[in-house]
């Protein structure tokens, strides 16, 4: 756990249509945090939907396996970094805690 240099990893798994969930998460994000989009939330990594998240100016990650399954690799916002499962695990170690917004 001594490797945890960053603050909170916010993990979202629902689409942008869940407005209240995104509003709550965005309110909770502080500098030093990061957002990870998994499962249905990878649609929020698409250009149009990601704009609001980009404004938070924290690292944005999205799970590659979920992006590929949904066939949206070419629509991902340039500020979103696609990561594999191993990096997912690393991130959970690098951040002091994870908060799941499910």
């Amino acid at each position, binding site marked *: 756990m001594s490797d945890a240099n960053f603050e909170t990893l916010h993990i979202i798994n629902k689409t942008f249509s869940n407005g209240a969930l995104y509003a709550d998460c965005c309110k909770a994000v502080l500098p030093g945090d990061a957002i990870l989009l998994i499962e*249905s939330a990878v649609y929020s990594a698409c250009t149009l939907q990601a704009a609001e998240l980009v404004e938070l100016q924290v690292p944005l990650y999205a799970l590659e396996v979920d992006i*590929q399954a949904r066939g949206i690799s070419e629509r991902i916002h340039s500020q979103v970094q696609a990561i594999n499962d191993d990096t997912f695990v690393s991130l959970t170690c690098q951040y002091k805690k994870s908060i799941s917004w499910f």
Partner: protein
Amino acid sequence: MADKNLLLIFRNPPFADSSNRDTLDIALACSAFDIPVSLIFLHDGILQLTRGQQSKSLQQKNLLNTFNALAMYDINQLFVLQSDLQRFELTTADLSVDCQAISDSKMAQLLRQSDRVINL
């Protein structure tokens, strides 16, 4: 029952839960009993139809294959909303299945005209 038409609503994205599969099962079962079935995809439901989905890595069945086979079951009435296409920056060409893009008000009429509507 066969003289009543049925409208099924898809509102969820692919791979999220079993609702899309369950609704699709209802469509196939009803069509087998000669019940006229129409499908409408609302909001995230439209994401179920986009091309290029590869579900193998998720170890889930890809429903797109079944959606593509609906014509064999005489299910040809598939609707999406123009407003939802815009929301996700899609056109009907991005969808794997032939759909009619309709306005929100036409959707309201469609629901009004349907004898039975199922929304899981």
